[in-house]
């Protein structure tokens, strides 16, 4: 099956004065149409940067990027808004405060579907109905500050799916919301993706949410992919020591169900720090001297594997 999206050795670095901070380091993966991928990691792991790189939304200045993002199923580059929809974390700041909800949705329809403004506003009302906003007609003239957090995120979703894209990228779509609203938005995301036949890239720090929504999981650490594979096996039989610790922590009933990925002792390396070996080594309970001296190698297939020296060696023995 032709992949919708394939990323090959994607790297992104931000300029900080004279230095370059490597945010994403040689990430590769492929996403079939209608598939769902969850990119997991704690803050600073590079997961948001990777999502922005896929959607071609990185800032133009102060950025160095390499590698390729291809769209084989589209037969060309993906057009933001048309082929890829994007939902951001904070629905308050990501909506324009001075434009009406109706205009912000309708402008997508005008731009990509070639509709007239009245027709686009009709479409906007339909979409608001579809994302479950009561009295959608009246809502067209509302402004973002007049809506609740959950309603704003529904509006953001409506905006992202206006042109019926092939892929929806959602960057922490629920973390700015309260628990009850989170569940509603997750349900809505799931329903819409199925109805429209969207592929989904979900960026999250929440293992449970990832397992709930996605088929494939990608765990990132310090800009690199730590583990990639079917999400069920990742949760039931984690291979990377980092993922093992995360799964153990998420099963611990004493811990509150927030930011589970950050609850491993120790902190991730400073961005820009030169690491000759494995970036997770200082926090790794199973670290060996070899982990400090040379980088781990990818063990497994491009669609299912671990970035850890232990599995690398195991794989070498099997070969």
């Amino acid at each position, binding site marked *: 099956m032709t992949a919708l999206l394939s990323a090959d050795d994607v790297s992104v670095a931000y300029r900080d004065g004279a230095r370059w901070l490597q945010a994403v380091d040689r990430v590769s993966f492929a996403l079939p149409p209608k598939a769902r991928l969850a990119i997991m990691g704690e803050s600073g792991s590079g997961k948001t940067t990777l999502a922005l790189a896929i959607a071609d939304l990185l*800032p133009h200045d102060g950025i160095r990027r390499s590698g390729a993002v291809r769209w084989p199923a589209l037969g060309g580059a993906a057009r933001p808004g048309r082929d890829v929809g994007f939902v951001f974390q904070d629905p308050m700041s990501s909506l324009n405060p001075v434009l009406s909800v109706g205009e912000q949705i309708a402008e997508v329809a005008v731009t990509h579907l070639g509709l007239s403004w009245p027709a686009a506003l009709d479409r906007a009302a339909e979409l608001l109905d579809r994302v479950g906003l009561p009295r959608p007609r009246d809502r067209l003239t509302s402004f973002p500050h007049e809506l609740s957090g959950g309603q704003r995120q529904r509006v953001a979703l409506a905006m992202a799916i206006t042109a019926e894209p092939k892929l929806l990228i959602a960057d922490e779509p629920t973390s700015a919301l309260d628990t009850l609203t989170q569940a509603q938005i997750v349900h809505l995301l799931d329903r819409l993706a199925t109805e429209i036949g969207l592929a989904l890239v979900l960026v999250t720090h929440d293992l449970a949410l990832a397992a709930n929504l996605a088929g494939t999981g990608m765990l990132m650490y310090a800009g690199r992919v730590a583990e990639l594979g079917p999400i069920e096996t990742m949760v039931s039989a984690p291979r990377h020591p980092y993922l093992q610790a995360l799964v153990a922590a998420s099963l611990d009933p004493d811990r509150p169900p927030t930011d589970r990925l950050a609850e491993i002792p120790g902190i991730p390396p400073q961005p820009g720090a030169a690491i000759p070996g494995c970036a997770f080594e200082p926090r790794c309970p199973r670290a060996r001297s070899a982990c400090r001296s040379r980088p781990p190698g990818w063990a497994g297939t491009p669609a299912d594997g671990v970035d850890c020296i232990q599995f690398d060696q195991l794989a070498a023995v099997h070969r």
Partner: protein
Amino acid sequence: MRAVLRRFATGGGIAGTVLFALVVLAALLAAVIAPGDPMAMAGRPLIQPFSDWRFPLGTDRLGRDVLAELLHGARATLIVSGAAALVTLLVGITIGTLAGFIGGRLDDALMRLADAFQSVPTFILALAFVSIAGPSLASVVTAVSLGAWTAPARVLRAEILSLRRREFVDAYRVLGMPPLQIAFREVLPNALPPVITLAAVIVANAILVEAALSFLGLGNPNSVTWGAMIAEGRAVIRSAPYLSAIPGVAVVVTVLAVNLIGDAANEAIHARRVQVP
């Protein structure tokens, strides 16, 4: 503090400081370079600039040395604008502190007063005040301050309002310190930094208002002012435009210097760190 100084030392900050230092130097050395009365006739009238080495910037209609007038004008400008800024800040700080700390009816009354003063075209107010009080150093300084005190008063009031709820104020209250003493001794110093950055704006504005008053013949009659020089040059603007141009350039340079310093200071204090998305 050192970090603030380092951020201040940008191109604009340095240029502004150098330019302002030159103006101050000119004012200080006025009596040395150009001794005697700058308003007295020194030579032939209407000598072009750069044509006679004794009068590098030429002479005006009455044979007065333009360079001497310019240097003494720097002094007058700095004295008036400095005094006006000082009075403005003092009045603004006092009113802002009283309004913010005592609050209630006094606050309401003072803020309505500030509203009224902000609705008045400040220059017409200054014009009316000077014409009724008579032109003098004191009346010009008062006239400039009348239109400017509201900005520092409002900024300070807002600062105080956010500070007065802090614990340390309660601590002093419990210790039995009189409210006004708490306001001016303990709260005020903490509220000052944002007002300080306003100082540059106030000085620049004072220079421009003073120049306009002098231009209309309502400046301090006892000293040479740049505004009066520009007005004086108007009579011969066709034949000797340099007479109006030169003092104008002096005003622009001085105001520019003050604005550059103000901008750089503002940036240095409010500098935000570069964010990595």
